[in-house]
């Protein structure tokens, strides 16, 4: 978990599942979900998974190091139901942490958090518990509540207890859940795409085959809008 103090000023308070463009001077600017925001001292939190040069540089960052940030970007959308089930894989849990802080009060929130290995689970479950959110973990080795993938966990769940399901994580997970989708409950997905301008001008983040721009229309979409994106290919 990385914490940055905002030196300029965010013009509006970020809402889940908004993101920012995080600019690592000398390297690229990349989209990064807001995992937490403390307005009192303007500290932004991120959860970074090192996958390439920019994220690796980020993961190694130690204070004082300056990053550029612009945003918040994306639609400040959040489910309106009272009982919400989150399925989060890897760094896909970032926007859900933010949601838990800002929106789970007075709601029933439950998170199923998936990782490959138990030692990747880390501080997330305790963080969520401390926010009053119940957590089930899933991983392929021993140690988690469920042994298996997020999709395995999804299959065994009884979804009637919830009004909405929000799925966030690697695209393969999203695809599989879209395929296995259970009827009778609204599904939402937090997607990723190559974000460049972040404000709807460059079409870099268009979801293939649609006129949706992830950076302004998303990153959270209801099932019917992205069904084809997820079920194709």
């Amino acid at each position, binding site marked *: 978990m990385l914490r940055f103090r905002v*030196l300029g000023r965010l013009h509006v308070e970020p809402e889940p599942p908004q993101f920012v*463009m995080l*600019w690592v*001077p*000398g390297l*690229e*600017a*990349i989209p990064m979900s807001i995992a937490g925001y403390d307005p009192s001292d303007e500290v932004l939190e991120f959860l970074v998974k090192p996958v390439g040069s920019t994220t690796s540089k980020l993961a190694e960052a130690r204070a004082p190091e*300056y*990053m*550029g940030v*612009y945003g918040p970007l994306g639609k400040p959308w959040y489910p309106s139901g009272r009982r919400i089930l989150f399925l989060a894989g890897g760094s896909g849990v970032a926007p859900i942490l933010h949601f838990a802080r800002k929106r789970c009060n007075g709601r029933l929130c439950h998170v199923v958090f998936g990782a490959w290995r138990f030692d990747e689970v880390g501080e997330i479950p305790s963080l969520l518990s401390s926010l009053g959110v119940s957590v089930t973990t899933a991983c392929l080795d021993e140690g988690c509540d469920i042994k298996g993938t997020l999709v395995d966990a999804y299959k065994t769940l009884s979804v009637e207890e919830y009004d909405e399901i929000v799925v966030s994580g690697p695209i393969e997970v999203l695809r599989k859940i879209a395929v296995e989708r259970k009827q009778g409950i609204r599904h939402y997905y937090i997607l990723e795409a190559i*974000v*460049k*301008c*972040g*404000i*709807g*001008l*460059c*079409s*870099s983040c*268009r979801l293939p085959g*649609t*006129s949706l721009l992830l950076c302004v229309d998303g990153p959270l979409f209801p099932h019917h809008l992205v069904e084809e994106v997820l079920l194709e290919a």
Partner: protein
Amino acid sequence: MRKDSKLSVSVTGIELRHPVMNASGILGDSVEGVRRLIGSGVSAVVTKTLTLEPREGYLPPILVPLEYGLLNAVGLANPGIDYVETLVREAHSSGLPIVVSIGGRDPDEFHVLAVKAFESGADALELNLSCPHTPGYGVDTASTLSTLKAVADSVKSVTTKPVWAKLGYNRSILDEAGALLEKGIDALVLINTIPGMAIDVYAKKPILTNRYGGLSGPAIHPVAVYTVYTVYREYRAHIVGAGGALDWVSALELILAGARAVQVGTGFYVKGLRIIEEILDGIREYMDKTGAKSLEELIGSAVD
């Protein structure tokens, strides 16, 4: 309908329902983008500048939002000229004219691009002679009056359809415009972005990956009005105005300065797709209030 006929205008022989279209680089690079534009109510679609090969453009940051405009260095990211047919088909299916913006590195490339665009049914070409931030293209292609003329020649030789040329602000703008008009260019599109830079004081680095970019929006609006006015006053040519048209007043200023039509770029970012109707409503109300009977009588009416 009756009301709208007051707004109709012809630019280089192309009949437009009204004078407001998008600026190149805004949404005109995919079928979906063209659909959004059509939905916004533009009177013509202008494509993103297309190059011979598809281009990825620069890595982000490619854009710095400022309080009074945008700084962008997209780097001419585009799907390449071979995609032009798809764009033309989409615009024509809604009965809208399409202006294809092309960007070449030399007169020969412009020649090839022009042929492909017209073969695909483009109603007009817009020569991008002024992108300030993509080495080899834009201002680099057009750095001397003789190359400007050579580009004009090479494109005009392939067609009798209208060819527009897009220039940026420069102190020699009158010479550049004159050289192009002399070579038969049918209209000038004024202006492209102005070079600018933003530095992050903590990182001590220019924010854009390309270091500098093009400044657009309200910040350059007075420069656009000045440029349109100055060129119109000298040549009384067909001009399409661009630069900080964010509402009906700023759009109308460009028209009164001599523009027959106005392109909106940054305005889409600031106001969203509804900006086109907002501008048109304002101009209609203004015409009613001031008793103007046709758009034609407003064009250049601030120029003595």
